[in-house]
């Protein structure tokens, strides 16, 4: 099961500058584990000590916020696109 993950600027030091990486896993949680194996330290940046996504990290599967899906247990299909985006961006008033 292959998916594409877009890496935000603050995490690119871990991916040696790569903006996009290939990953495997049938859920978002599995993909995070996969990333952590390939790029050690990734999981502690994305998740808190309980394994939940940190409050300043947003994850999207095919453009949809996983909080509208099944959070980190959201199931993935071959070819899905995952984006990791810092929460602190945009916002107006």
């Amino acid at each position, binding site marked *: 099961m292959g998916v594409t993950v877009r890496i935000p600027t*603050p995490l690119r030091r871990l991916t040696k500058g790569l903006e996009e990486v290939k990953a495997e896993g049938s859920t978002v949680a599995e993909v995070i584990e996969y990333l952590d194996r390939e790029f050690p330290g990734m999981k502690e940046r994305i998740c808190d000590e309980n394994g939940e996504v*940190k409050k*300043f990290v947003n994850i999207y599967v095919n453009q949809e*916020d996983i909080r509208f899906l099944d959070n980190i247990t959201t199931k993935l299909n071959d070819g899905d696109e995952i984006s990791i*985006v810092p929460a602190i961006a945009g916002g107006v*008033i």
Partner: protein
Amino acid sequence: MSFVKGLRCRECGREYPKEPLHVCEFCFGPLEVVYKYDEIKKSLTRETIVRRPANMWRYRELLPLDFPPTVGVDVGFTPLIRANNLAKVLGVKELYIKNDAVNHPTLSFKDRVVSVAISKAREFGFQIVACASTGNLANSVAAQAAQSGMESYIFIPADLEQGKIIGTSIYGACLIGIRGTYDEVNRLCSEIAGKYGWAFVNINIRPYYAEGSKAFGYEIMEQLGWRTPRHIVVPMAGGSLITKIWKAFIEFEKLGFIKKNEAKIYGAQASGCAPIVTAIKQGKDIFTPVKPSTIAKSLAIGNPADGYYAIKTMKESGGYGEDVSDEEIIEGIKILAKTEGIFAETAGGVTVGVAKKLIDKRIIPRDESIVLCITGNGLKTQEAVYGRIPDPVIINAKLSEFDQFLKERKKHSKK
């Protein structure tokens, strides 16, 4: 000279240099500008401020530029009016309106943050500025980019009000309408910002940009005679303004410009998009994102970047949050226009509507000072009230027709 020390993560406290950064690499927390308050205290006094021109740069020591601003040099110092007519309707004693519907140059409080952001972007050496916007920011970035001779790329939800679309394109900006909500525009822009080296005012320039909102708070205190109001109602979209007004109050207290920060701060949202208010009503620290559906498009952010801090700010101040329906928003716009002669955009209707609700529920007491924050101009969101106010009466250019019209009008009003 600059009094900025650098940037610091609001969550873990890690320090960063003065660069176009906005997120802590370690915990993803937001970075915030840190000032040398001891030095500011030595060199800035109330007397110095009062002697300076009436614009927001009279507080320049507390804004994050290293050099004088290169755009928006006249922004700010908008009127704070005593709103006695509206006070009567709402049944309160001391009511004020801070009116950024007449801010310069694009009629919203966004001119404050953008003048800081674009001036800062030029200091950093950027050639291109960009933003994700629900409209007011788009107008201001387009106008001030034109003023600074920079190219601008502006991303908006495609279904914005005409006034906000035309009020962006006219300045020569490259305007891109995205099929989707602001939150989708914003996510896309975060990815664009990571790919192209542009100055996204509300992404990679955000720590500097957001500081511009503090001037809204400084002005309120100065215009009230160097004090905070007891209660202040602020509209919330991303939740940044409310936190920065609060920061302004705290800074003036720290510098001794006011005796004591006595304010309670209340956040206002539309019921069709109220993630922050919902969290505070449920007593939660963290909001759940929503899919927006409201006429208050400038506040339609379902995943507010500063939502967490907005909740914290309201709690810390002893304030609260409230939301109003589209119907109440329109009523709010109309009542403000009819009582005070101020035509605010939908966000202003939200603020007035929420204030009314909080006063009726006795959460805001009737006998203490209250400030309502009006952040944008009604001429930009005319669609919201179109068909909800009387059409003009059309007659021929004959005195007899007018006489007849007036007679009937008087008859009707007698009934």
